[in-house]
């Protein structure tokens, strides 16, 4: 059952990237830092190191001690 849910989540994410790439204002959107964060998250996902979820959450977090 894990496989089907992981497969589904990956395809949904891939489809979301496709959707953004086909948007009218793609040039502006494509360079947004949030998207770049997601690309880095994909690299973490594909790697062999453990704690992928925690590392992705840190990647997507404001560093501690930083002013709001």
């Amino acid at each position, binding site marked *: 059952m894990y496989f*089907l849910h992981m*497969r589904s989540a990956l*395809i949904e994410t891939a*489809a979301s990237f496709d*959707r953004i790439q*086909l948007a009218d204002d793609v040039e502006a959107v494509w360079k947004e830092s949030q998207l770049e964060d997601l690309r880095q998250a994909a690299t973490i996902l594909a790697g062999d190191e453990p704690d992928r979820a925690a590392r992705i959450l840190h990647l997507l977090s404001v560093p501690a001690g930083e002013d709001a």
Partner: protein
Amino acid sequence: MNIIEPHVHMIARTVQDYERMARMHTVAICEPAFWAGYDRTSPAAFHDYFTHISEFEPTRAAQYLIDHYCWICINPKEAEDVEFSREVISFMPEFLSKPNVLGIGEIGLNKNTRNEMMIFEEQVELALQMDQLIWIHTPHLQDKWKGTKMMADYLVGHGGIDPNQVCFDHVEEHTMPLLHDLGFWTAMTVYPVTKNSPDRVIDLVERYSLERKIVDASGDWGPSDPATLHDTLFQMRLRGHADPDVEQLFYGNPKHFLNQKGKFKTR
């Protein structure tokens, strides 16, 4: 806005689903013949099943002002037993002549075996002999691309098939380009996990146009929900598509495909 659900297995659903669909403006539904979750022990069980979906199920639907139509066939999974399948095919014409039976379906492939393909081809021939529409089940998951290609190649190579009278169901991003280019109708199924999401269906419509496109929820005995059809309609509206386009996808297109033989006479 009236809605048509082109693919739902009501034999596996409760009356509450009829009520929900009626409240969401579903005016007509179609029930293709399928695998019941277990292999039938005799061809006679199929006769009972065809009688159920062509006679009893319409009476349940009518209580909620929904028109019920069905399709008749030996499904891909049980088609592996060739002699068994041929016995079932032998009494299909009796049902195909009924006014609420729209054609032969959902035929297709499951594991893409030679036996499955043989029975698929024999049912295509019956459809041609009896001038029937064809509704095709494409395989699940890892078998979908290969099976879709096998069936599309066969139908194109046959030379006598009008692609406008054939609908391939459960189409996704990897099978859409082939089928769209060949001129077949394509249906996109919305499932919680194993098929399309509402977003992906509208993505496909935006990339490949509304032409010959249908959406269904394929509610059955597994994880599925007739309301995902309406979730997809709402997603299309959220993206700003005009109401006439939404109505074409969820009412006009299925009505056009299903009524090519004059049997689909819904509101």
